[in-house]
């Protein structure tokens, strides 16, 4: 009888071992919950909203640029940090998103990488993830090429255009810097791997 039980246990173990991977790197949030979260309009910010946060030097946000490093070095939104999309999805998100008090805003050239990353981060349990809709393309169309063409401007429009002008100026200044200066500036905004506290040296 013992042999029979052993065989049953071994076969059960084999079945369990051959089951599809249920990795600890899989999404933690329930699909239905994640769906309603990511379809909520509040997860998207317009470029105007992001421009305002930049101009106001809001310290509760972190803008994450998901484009390749070469593209980031050439051109980026002021104050953003670079985490290329391929690294973002293949590394431990805790490295980049450990501070739950900071709201992370993703952007890329268009809408794909940023939206993938937002769903990915939220699926991994990082609710502090938002997306800048339209990416850098939309930034150019709305902020950099912004011009008022009407005859009378309202106070609200005036504030909007002023913010756009300030954001555009900052963007132009930073991205026009010589490479050497820019490198220093970028280094200040670079992610460094989280150091372990304590332990042997």
């Amino acid at each position, binding site marked *: 009888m013992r042999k029979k039980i052993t065989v049953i246990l071994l076969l059960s173990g084999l079945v369990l071992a051959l089951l599809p*991977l249920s990795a600890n790197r899989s999404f933690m949030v329930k*699909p239905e919950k994640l769906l309603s979260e990511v379809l909520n309009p509040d997860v998207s910010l317009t470029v105007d909203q992001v421009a305002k946060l930049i101009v106001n030097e809001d310290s509760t946000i972190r803008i994450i640029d998901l484009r390749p490093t070469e593209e980031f070095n050439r051109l980026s939104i002021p104050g953003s940090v670079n985490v290329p999309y391929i690294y973002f999805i*293949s590394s431990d998100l805790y490295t980049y998103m450990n501070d739950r008090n900071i709201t992370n805003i993703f952007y890329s050239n268009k809408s794909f990488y940023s939206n993938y990353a937002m769903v990915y981060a939220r699926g991994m349990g990082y609710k502090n993830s938002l997306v800048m809709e339209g990416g850098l393309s939309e930034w150019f169309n709305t902020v950099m090429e912004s011009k008022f063409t009407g005859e009378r401007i309202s106070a609200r429009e005036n504030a909007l255009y002023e913010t756009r002008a300030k954001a555009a100026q900052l963007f132009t200044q930073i991205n026009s810097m010589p490479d050497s200066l820019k490198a220093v500036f970028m280094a200040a905004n670079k992610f460094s791997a989280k150091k372990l506290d304590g332990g042997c040296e």
Partner: protein
Amino acid sequence: MDTFKKNRFVSAVFLILFVAVLYRSFSHSGFRYDAPKLAGQSFQGSNIVTEEQIPGFQNALIINLNNSEILKDKYSEFTLKVNPDSILEKKNIRRIIKNRGPVILVSSENSISARIWMLLSQKGIKNIFILSEEKDFEVLKNKFRPDTLSVPELI
């Protein structure tokens, strides 16, 4: 059999655990796959298709996510209109899984297609694509004009 009867409690616990593991492994009610591996496909853009590529797909199922007019009335015989909110309803998931060919997500907003793609692919559903107007899905076409005379104050 006698041994099982004698160890009823242990056998029952073992059976419950075994069934629970099997259920978790084969049910489609949660996420259970390696997320980075499944997301990897989105990096190269191999999940992006253009309208010209659609005729080349066999047994394709087009999912129109928000009554998009991109394809107009073309391919209506194999188009399923689904509100993004209800994409995870059983009947829709069953229809997607049963389809033998590729599933193409169509939306007037690329952001909605991208979000739904990531969600469905993390559920282990393969062969899902996004219809995009251009194959260069993440290429910046705007030109930047540097101003070398201005210096930022923060330096």
